[in-house]
C-alpha cells in the first residue's frame, strides 16, 4: 500500500513513523505523503493519533520518535528541531493555542516574520500587512497589543492562528481541529482564511478533523483515515461523504483485525 502512495517528489514524505508519548506508543509505522499544493484531510475517531501525527511532523519534543523518517521539500527533517522545521516551511495550527503572558501579539508577529528572510519587509509594509489580515479575519486592531492568546476566547485564538498562517505563507499547513469549538460566524471566517491561504500561497494542507463542516468550502484532493495510530485507508474526497454517513466503525473493525 505504501509503495503506491509514497513518491520521492512529494512535498512531505513521512515513512514508517512510530511515535510514543511518555513511553506509550501512539503511532505505529505510519506512512503519509502530501504533494506541493495538495489538500489532504486526515480523519479518524477521537484518540486515533491524528494530533500526535501533526505534532510529530512539527517536531514537538513532547513526542518521542521510535523510528521512521520525515522528509520535507527534499530535505531530511527527521533530526531537526521544531523551529528549524518551521523555518523550512511547515506550520502547525494548534488545536489549543498556548497562552504566552507578557508578549504582545504584535511583538510576536513581528519577531516570527523577521526570522524568515523571504518575508523581510519594512516596518511600514509589515504594519500594513498585519492590518489587512486582521481586517480580513474580522479582528479588531486592539488585539495587536494584547498578550498572545491570554484571555482570548477559543474563536479568537483560532483567528490568531489563521493570521499567522496567512502572514507566514508556509509551504505546508497542518490544521489541527481548527474548527473545534467555533461558532458559525467564526467558522465562516476561519474557512475564508483557509481559502485565502490556498489561493494566495498555493500551499499544501493537512486538515485534521473529525467534523466535515469545515471541508464544505475547501477543495479536498485526498483523504486518509487513521485508527489506533495507523493509517487504515487512503482515498479521494468521496470518503468524506462515506464517513459522514457511516462513521468510523468499519475502519475501527478493520484496524482491530490488522492489529
Amino acid at each position, binding site marked *: 500500500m505504501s509503495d503506491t502512495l509514497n513518491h520521492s517528489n512529494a512535498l512531505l514524505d513521512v515513512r514508517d513513523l512510530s511515535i510514543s508519548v511518555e513511553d506509550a506508543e501512539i503511532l505505529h509505522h505510519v506512512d503519509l505523503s502530501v504533494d506541493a499544493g495538495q489538500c489532504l484531510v486526515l480523519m479518524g475517531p477521537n484518540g486515533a493519533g491524528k494530533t500526535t501525527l501533526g*505534532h510529530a511532523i*512539527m*517536531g*514537538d*519534543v*513532547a513526542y518521542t520518535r521510535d523510528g521512521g523518517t520525515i522528509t520535507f521539500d527534499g530535505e531530511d527533517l527527521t533530526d531537526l*528541531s*521544531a*523551529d528549524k522545521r*518551521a*523555518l523550512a516551511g511547515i*506550520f*502547525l495550527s*494548534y488545536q489549543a*493555542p*498556548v*497562552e*504566552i*503572558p*507578557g*508578549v*504582545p501579539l*504584535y*511583538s*510576536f508577529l*513581528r*519577531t*516570527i516574520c*523577521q*526570522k*524568515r528572510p523571504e518575508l523581510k519587509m*519594512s*516596518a*511600514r509594509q*509589515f*504594519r500594513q500587512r498585519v492590518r489587512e489580515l486582521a481586517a480580513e479575519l474580522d479582528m479588531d486592531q486592539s488585539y*495587536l*497589543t494584547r498578550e498572545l492568546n491570554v484571555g482570548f476566547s477559543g474563536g479568537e485564538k483560532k483567528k490568531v492562528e489563521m493570521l*499567522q498562517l496567512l502572514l*507566514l505563507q508556509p509551504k505546508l499547513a497542518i490544521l489541527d481541529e481548527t474548527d473545534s469549538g467555533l461558532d458559525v460566524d467564526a467558522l465562516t471566517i476561519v474557512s475564508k482564511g483557509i481559502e485565502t491561504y490556498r489561493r494566495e500561497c498555493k500551499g499544501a494542507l493537512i486538515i485534521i478533523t473529525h467534523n466535515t463542516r469545515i471541508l464544505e468550502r475547501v477543495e479536498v484532493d485526498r483523504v486518509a483515515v487513521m485508527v489506533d495510530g495507523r493509517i487504515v485507508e487512503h482515498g479521494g474526497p468521496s470518503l468524506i461523504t462515506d464517513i459522514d454517513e457511516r462513521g468510523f466503525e468499519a475502519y475501527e473493525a478493520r484496524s482491530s483485525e490488522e492489529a
Partner: protein
Amino acid sequence: MSAQTKVLTGVDAARAQTWNWLAINETSLEVPCVEAPVALDLPRWARDVRLIAGAEAQSWLDELSAEPIVGVSTAEEAHPVLAFLGDVEGEDLDVSAASLLAEENAKGDVTIIASGAARTTANTCRLSLKEGAKATVDILVARPEDATHVQSFGATLAEDASLALRIWILGAAKTTLAIACDLEGARSRFTSELRYLAGSEETIDITYDVRQLGRGTEAEINASGVLEGSAEKTLRASIDLVRGCKGSKGSETETVLVAGDGVRNKTLPVILCSEDDVQGDHGATIGSLSPEQMGFLSSRGLSEADIVALAGQAIIDDAASALGDVALAEIVGWTRAARGPEASAQAADAGALMHGTLCDVAEEEA
C-alpha cells in the same frame, strides 16, 4: 563620582516581614549626600498621602525636592502632570516631587519619564483622588546601565475613585520603587500593571503596599518581567484587606521569566486579611517557560535564544505602544543604546502602530 555618597537603610521595607536570613524584607541604597537640604512645602492633602520608601529614603527625597510640582485637576479642567527626569545637561542628580489632587469627578494624569543621562534620578509622586476622580499614572524607567532611579509613590482614594498605575522598567543599574495605595473610600479601585526588564548586573527592588479600607474596593496588581544575565529583582507586594472592607477583592499576579544563569529573583507576595467578606488571591509563575509554551513558540520558527529575546522585546514594545505619544524617542533611544538597532527599530514600529500620526521616530529608525 566626586560628590560624597551615603547609604540609606530600611528602604522599600515590606510591612509584613519574614525570616531575615532571606534578605528579602528591605533594601539599602547608596545615594549622593544632600548638600543644601530644602524644606519641602506641600499642601495638607499631599502631606497626608502615605509613603513607604522608608524614613531615611523619604527624607533624602524630600530634602532634595527643591521645586515641587503641585497640580489640581477639577472636573472642568484637567491638569496633567508630565515630568522628564535626569535630562538636564551637566546635572548628575535630579530629584523631583510631583503632587496631584484630583477633585470630585475630575480626571488626573501623571506621566513620569526617567530617561535622562544623569547618574541619579529620583521622584516622589503624591496623589489624592477625591470622590469619583479617575487618574492614570505612567512611570517609565529607561536609564543608562550605570544609573540609579529612586521612586516613591503614594495615593489616597476616596469613594468611587479609581487609579490605574502603569510602570515600565527597562533599565538602570538600580531601580527602587515604593508604591503605597490606600483605598479609603467605598468602591475605590486600584489597578497596576508592572513590566520590567533587567539585564546583567542590574537590580530592581519594588514594594507595593495596598490597604483596602473602604467597602467594595478592588485592587489588582499584575507584574511580569524578564531577568537576563545576572540581574537581581525583588518584588514585595502586600495587599491588606482591613477589617471593615466588606465586599472587597484584592489580587496579585506575577510572571517572571528567568533567562540567565546568574539571575536572582525574590518574590514576597503577601495577603493580609482581617475581614471575612472578601476575596484575596495571589498567583506567581517563576522560572523558565513551560514545555507547552516552548513547544508552541518553536513551532513558529523561534529558537530558545529567539524566545528569550522576544520576551524582552515584548516589554519594550509594550512601553512603546503605551507611551508612544509622549516618550517614543526616549524609549527608542534607550533601546538602540542597550539592545541595538534591530530592537530599536521594532520598538519604534510598535509605537507607530498605536500612534499612527507620530511616526517620525519610527521612520528614522526604519
